[in-house]
């Protein structure tokens, strides 16, 4: 039977060592940012893949999140608070938490996992070795464009998610809860703080950065053929989604 103390020690050492590897990857990835202009074709391709291609999914998730938020608010307010406050309650929840966090979790599934699978496949088929053998740094060629693209595109996706979620919330409020346009948007304006929306967008910068970084890290560590690639995709999503929630908590303490 395994000694539990030894088991915990081994797991802790493994976790700290992996954290160190991610920090090293982050430093190396950032060291290539000054020459991103030369690699703009790679960056644009990733911005399209991570950003533009994710818009439909973010819009669908955002719309339904907004709609369910209105129902949730109405349910909680019942008998205590007037429904005329739904606009402000829902919009603040969307701008601060729901928009940035849900968009990031969607991107963790769509982009973080796909980065891990793509790089993992390249790893197990020796394509990463082939890049290095041509004198090309895989970090510069693969990691920097993905991390920079995700960091730049995540705030934009969050803005889209915020807008569509607000529309979703309004649709439910207006059509099902009998709240007029004026009452809903007056309520949104009355308690609107620029800090809420900027705080959410600021958080999304970190979310994008971390998601891509985890995808690259997990992808480059892949081993074991097709099974390894599958496991890497799952691992990238689980780690990415967990890191978003942990970061969300830490950033809340700093920003709000």
């Amino acid at each position, binding site marked *: 039977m395994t000694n539990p103390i030894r088991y915990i020690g081994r797991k802790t050492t493994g976790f700290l060592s992996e954290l160190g590897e991610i920090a090293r990857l982050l430093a190396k990835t950032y060291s290539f940012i000054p020459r991103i202009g030369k690699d703009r074709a790679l960056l644009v391709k990733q911005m399209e893949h991570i950003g533009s291609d994710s818009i439909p999914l973010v819009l669908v998730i955002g719309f339904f999140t907004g709609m369910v938020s209105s129902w949730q608010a109405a349910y909680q307010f019942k008998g205590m608070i007037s429904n005329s406050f739904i606009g402000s309650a829902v919009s603040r929840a969307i701008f601060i938490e729901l928009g940035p966090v849900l968009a990031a979790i969607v991107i963790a599934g769509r982009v973080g996992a796909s980065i891990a699978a793509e790089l993992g496949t390249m790893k197990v088929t*020796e394509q990463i070795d082939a890049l290095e053998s041509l004198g090309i*740094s895989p970090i510069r060629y693969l990691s920097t464009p993905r991390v920079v693209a995700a960091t730049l595109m995540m705030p934009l996706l969050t803005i889209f998610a915020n807008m569509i979620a607000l529309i979703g919330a309004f649709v439910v409020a207006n059509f099902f809860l009998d709240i007029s346009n004026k009452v809903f948007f007056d309520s949104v304006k009355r308690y609107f703080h620029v800090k809420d929306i900027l705080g959410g967008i600021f958080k999304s910068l970190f979310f994008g950065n971390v998601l891509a970084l985890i995808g690259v890290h997990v992808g480059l560590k892949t081993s074991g053929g097709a099974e390894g690639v599958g496991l890497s995709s799952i691992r990238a999503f689980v780690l990415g989604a967990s890191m978003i929630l942990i970061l969300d908590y830490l950033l809340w303490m700093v920003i709000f």
Partner: protein
Amino acid sequence: MIEIQDLRKSFGEKEVLRGISFSVHDGETVAIIGASGCGKSVLLKLIIGLLHPDSGVVNVDGLTIADASEEQLEALRRQIGFLFQSAALFDSMTVYENVVLGLWEQGQRDETKLRSIATEKLAMVGLNGIFDQKPSELSGGMKKRVGLARALAMEPKYLFYDEPTTGLDPITSDQIDLLIYNVTERYKATNIIVTHDLFTVQQIAKRVIFINEGIAYFDGTPDELLSSSEKVIQQFVERFVQK
């Protein structure tokens, strides 16, 4: 010149290389043979710094790989053409993009020149009119040829071949052997061919190193290898001699 001194490499509990030493002089064509899993491919990756040894020294043109900076390693790797066992073509790119990637990344942006180089190198390996095809559309033999064209595009000083005929049918294997022979004759590069195909060894190599139990057990000419009275070597070459 490549110098390898007392190189050791383990993967987990398994020690693959146990203090191997040898040198490869400029212009030589050396075959490295041995049983599957004896560390032949690992050796190639250690030479270009894709893997790190547990101990021992690899020197290439006076540069000690373990002490080299990233920039030095990248510069060295640009002088080494590497044909991978699986060809390792970039599957998101076309054949043309695969062949010219190294040159493009070195700053060569003249499209006419790049197309001319790609046409020349692909013709050299017997391929024409496949610029826009993706690797998934190619056969195993064609992939190896494109991989070789990609390696040649950089006009390398060294050419490393990792199992160039593994997984190919006998006719395609012969074609690849002939191709490698022509390339070695034309380029006068220093060639290291990792293989367990003794046909390849006999047709191309001038010198052969047999790895056994993690060391260079035999170092001589292909004829000396085939006539060796060592039992381990006889067992290895037996099938080939019978044919």
